[in-house]
């Protein structure tokens, strides 16, 4: 079955703080890769100057597959020899779609980055806005969305288990 995306995301990767590799602050060359699924990803340019607090202020545009439950933001660093992952954050789609805000709302979000072994790293700051085609305007629903209750630590398990209220996916197409 083909994964269609009605929604695309306008993501502004703003900055990051307190980035560390092997417990030491990184010196430079950090960049961010944003992934909405295995086929859709986009990265920022490399920040050569900001050190452990780089800033990019770059806009990325990615389609959001209807079935996506979260998107992945990965901060990586170009060292002499290779590219290392500093930390990853999994952002549940429910944090920016399906809450009571209108679809055009620009969400300013920040997340704790986690290393592959689960250790805490720095913080990544970004803003996300969903771009929805006119006829599927996501009016905030009167039903309370299921956020907050029993969300698993997103980094530890890859399966989200998060309920999203995108009325679009059901019965419209």
């Amino acid at each position, binding site marked *: 079955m083909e994964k269609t995306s009605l929604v695309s995301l306008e993501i502004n990767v*703003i*900055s990051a*703080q*307190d980035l560390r590799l092997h417990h030491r602050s990184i010196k430079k060359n950090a960049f961010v890769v944003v992934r909405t699924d295995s086929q859709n990803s986009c990265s920022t340019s490399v920040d050569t*100057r*900001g*050190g*452990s*607090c780089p800033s990019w202020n770059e806009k990325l545009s990615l389609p959001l597959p209807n079935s996506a439950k979260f998107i992945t933001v990965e901060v990586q660093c170009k060292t002499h020899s290779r590219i290392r992952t500093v930390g990853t*954050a*999994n*952002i*549940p789609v429910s*944090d920016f779609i399906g*809450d*009571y*805000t*209108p679809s055009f*709302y*620009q*969400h*300013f*979000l*920040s*997340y*704790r980055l*986690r290393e592959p072994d689960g250790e805490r790293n720095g*913080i990544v*700051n970004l803003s996300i806005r969903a771009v929805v085609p006119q006829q599927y305007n996501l*009016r*905030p629903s009167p039903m*309370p969305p299921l*956020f*907050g209750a029993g*969300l698993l*630590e*997103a*980094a530890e398990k890859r399966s989200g288990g998060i309920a999203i209220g995108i009325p679009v996916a059901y019965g419209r197409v």
Partner: protein
Amino acid sequence: MGGCFSDLKGGKQAVGGTQARPTAMDKDPEHGEGNNEAVDMFYKSRGLHALFTQIELSFSAAKLRNLDILSKSDPMAVVYTKKSNGTLEELGRTEVILNTLDPVWIGKVPIAYQFEIIQPLVFRVFDVDTKFHNLPVKMLKLNEQEFLGEASCVLSEIVTKHTKTLTLNLQNRDGHVDVKRLGTLTIHAEETIASRRAVEMILHCSCLENKDLFSKSDPFLRISRIVESGGSVPICKTEVVNNNLNPIWKPICLTMQQFGSKDNPLVIECFDFNSSGKHEIIGKLQKSVADLERLHKEKLGANFHLPSPARQGHEKILKGQLFVDAFSERTLYSFLDYISSGFELNFMVAVDFTASNGNPRFPESLHYIDPSGRLNAYQQAIFEVGEVIQFYDTDKHFPAWGFGGRTTDGSISHCFNLNGNVGECEVEGVHGIMAAYANALHNVALAGPTLFGQVINKASQMASQSISYGQSKYFVLLIITDGVLTDAQETKDALVKASDLPLSVLIVGVGNADFKEMEILDADNGQRLESSTGRIAARDIVQFVPMREVHSGQLSVVQALLEELPSQFLTYMRSREIKPHFANEVPVST
């Protein structure tokens, strides 16, 4: 300076300038907190208030009473501020206009507008006798003049109006409305900010000299304006970047008020930070804002220099250079710009109904309603905060909730409507909140535990829903509680979600509990709140004040609670580039 316990972190913070698009994202414990913290301390320690805005009042009147026989009255207006003990203190007076019953005075009276207090004003109009017409206005003795009428209002009534103009009916001195009509007085308020223009820059340096022994210099910049007398006045200082000879600092924003004009020379000095307070100068240079703009366009660097130790009067040019990575001009609208253009503050209240307050029937209870009329802590907080904010809320319909109580259906609720009405949570006016609160004490049994999550989520829901109807409402939730939170993580989760919305949460702690945990929510120490899912608060939206702490100082609880509100409001608006309505209107060509 530099005693054993000096505030090192505070000393490394950026000072001055102004905040253009600040967010909690600037609050990095390593680099120092958001720009305004140190500035606020600076002002407070000198008894000034950072968040006051200078306003000028101008006056006109119509249909004044005629007291002269052969000609018309010669009126003059006087403005007083009414102090808390009821006495009046004169703020200023206009000039005398001869022979008119509809004067339009030119003389303006300056007054500092403070968001967080009620500023009652009294206006009196006098007819000045001819024999005094040659005296300077300030020498006139008012008890020797003929009284024409008096009016009073509160300053926020004037500044929140779209036209910033208020017309009042003049009355007799003792407040009685005379049979004879005394005419009207019109007051207009204008902010005296000359220009709202500001400049935002990102500066970095290269090849700075190393002044430290075992590590590299810890540089910061200080920008000063040269004044006519030849000296210089510092206007801004960047944060300190540790151990770096090629530092890049966070964006700095300077208002036109601070640098004067784009051609005014500014002195930029680079220092190496020393915890002893004796910072060593690395180099300095002199550039105007226009020069800095040119440096940015041409992507050139400017060399620092130092007075040469060897040759008198000569400057040694250093290798270190200053670069301007980013330069942009912007317009910074003030809080009053937004308010008078139609933006509103929506007030909401949540009251703690947990059993730790004590049985309301006994006088020791924090919920005891004193028949003598003395307000309990809850009533005081509701009344004083509501009294200030109500002027900024046009419909005065305030949602009011209780939490931690057992309602009439027998279940404990952490978000029940204070008015007892299942469908509708709003009450009318501050008196409506007080009445609903008193009523609820009869119908709701105190229970527990102390949980804020649900009321914060409810407030977030209302704030989110209002966004669909335009983004000119900002919500203020006042939570009054006697106890420590049972589930701090639940509250943090709710606050993290709310940090992305047009909402501020004010928490007043009443009673004698140890509120240390609550102070963590306030995030004034720079630690951003983290939810259980790893999401981090986008901005600091909480202000917490324990009621008992404030009685000793000079600030009242309300002032301490409300003083951060205009800047939290501006942070939200500026970070989303939301402008006052008049800024979006297409200018009509004349």
